[in-house]
């Protein structure tokens, strides 16, 4: 991650948000970032409130269970801690912008948004004629992140990554980005990946770095590993109403903790155990015999 990078994260929507990486970005005081994502449950709000962000390209910034993101509001309405530029999208236009980049195209056409204000005077969305004579469309320009950060269940050391559950825009972002960072619950032998190639959503040659970081998406959920920890979302929603409350939260949960292991310890073993999924409901095996 560099100063001024355009970073895509939170791509699966409410699950698998790479909070460990988000908090490390804050600790390393990266500045002038552009954030890219569809919705961004709390993570964008934290990055904005911590002063790391210059611009947001997203469809929704807030706290899914609570509503408003107060850090986002303070930045947008009052320039605290700094002014941010907002490029508003709908989920589909973020998706099309990343997909166009993933496909190596300058833009993709769509019917979404016609008649609304999001697409009016938009820097990345313009009217376009259908060359085949159909009704006119909107062109959504490609959006190529410098970095995509994605949390998955398992990957091998090459970065070949298995992810199951909802995918959101994970695949598009990983294919579009110049660099992709994978954080995972566990690094597994490559035989595990190769035993089920349909589950590989990101081939390793697209991955710049792979990091084993169990619990790296908490308090968001990871299918088969972690339930959603609801309380931190609500608590953050309440304390971040004021700048002081946010600063206090930031010290306790980010700045005073060196890494994710410390975060898990700070949560407490009992809390972590309560969230860990121990039940097993395994998919039926698929026969890949040649």
């Amino acid at each position, binding site marked *: 991650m560099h100063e001024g990078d355009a970073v895509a994260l939170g791509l699966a929507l409410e*699950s698998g948000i790479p909070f460990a990486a988000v908090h490390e970005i804050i600790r390393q005081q990266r500045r002038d970032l552009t954030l890219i994502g569809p919705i961004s449950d709390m993570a964008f709000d934290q990055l904005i409130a911590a002063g790391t962000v210059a611009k947001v390209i997203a469809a*929704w910034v807030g706290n899914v269970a609570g509503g408003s993101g107060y850090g986002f509001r303070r930045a947008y309405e009052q320039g605290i801690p700094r002014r941010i530029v907002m490029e508003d999208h709908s989920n589909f236009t973020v998706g099309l912008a990343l997909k166009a980049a993933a496909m190596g195209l300058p833009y993709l056409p769509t019917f979404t948004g016609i008649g609304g204000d999001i697409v009016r005077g938009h820097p990345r969305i313009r009217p376009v004629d259908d060359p085949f004579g159909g009704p006119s469309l909107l062109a959504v320009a490609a959006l190529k992140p410098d970095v995509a950060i994605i949390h998955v269940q398992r990957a091998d050391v090459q970065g070949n990554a298995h992810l199951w559950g909802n995918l959101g825009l994970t695949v598009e972002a990983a294919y579009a980005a110049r660099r992709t960072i994978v954080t995972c619950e566990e690094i597994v032998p490559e035989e595990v990946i190769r035993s089920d190639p349909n589950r590989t959503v990101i081939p390793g040659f697209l991955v710049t770095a792979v990091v084993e970081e169990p619990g790296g998406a908490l308090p968001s959920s990871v*299918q088969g590993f972690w339930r959603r920890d609801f309380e931190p*979302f609500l608590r953050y929603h309440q304390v971040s109403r004021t700048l002081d409350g946010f600063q206090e939260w930031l010290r306790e949960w980010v700045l005073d903790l060196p890494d994710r292991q410390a975060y898990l310890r700070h949560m407490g073993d009992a809390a972590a155990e309560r969230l860990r999924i121990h039940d097993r*409901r395994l998919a039926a095996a698929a026969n890949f015999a040649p």
Partner: protein
Amino acid sequence: MIATYTRRELMVVAAAREIRDGEVVFVGMRLPLLGFGLAKATHAPNAVGLFENGVIRDRPAEAFIYTMGDPPNIAGAVACLGLNDVMSLLQQGRVDLGFIGGAEIDPLGNLNTTRTSASGSLVRLPGSGGGGDIASLAGRTVLIMEHEPRRFRERVDYITSPGHFQGRRRGGPATLITTLGVFDLTGGRVRAVTLHPGTTPEQVRQATGFPLAIDESIPATAPPSTDELAYIRKADPDGFWTGDTMKAG
């Protein structure tokens, strides 16, 4: 016997009644999520639900969920795809009905969830999410709102989710379900269909920042049956979404 119920429980029931059997529904969270499960359990067993994170389900989640990405919404799903996959189905015209919430609405059914200066100073709202897409592309939309004068505006400051406009390809707002009643939006104006029990036409006029058609003899919204209530309370055991204090928008 009709048990006591909250306004939000009644709104869930009203949302469920909008779903016809066999329909493909873009579900969304909060009240519509419960409404989808209720419809499946009652009159619409063959409805299919799409979620913007890529999940396709034809039965409700097995346990309470806070978000569409929670593990119980993935377990037992029909498919887990990507956002562009389900949005493509929406764009193709294969989604009959979508639910959207809003912070502000105008008589054309335009919703604003982006920014407003209605209170005098600028307030930034979270944004579209998938709302703008559902409004643009679903076969019809059902809107869910808190019924307050500051939210019902002659003209919204920003059209996040387009309502009725000339040149619309398909769909548009069909029904509005609020904390006070159920309203028809199909003609590009707001017409009260039923008011929730105990609500008077005068109350609704007071709470609506623009003129709306409302008969003095307007019927009451049919209250939840005991079966419907039982379903809702099983799906939302602590009243997280349907208690008296939770915001619907």
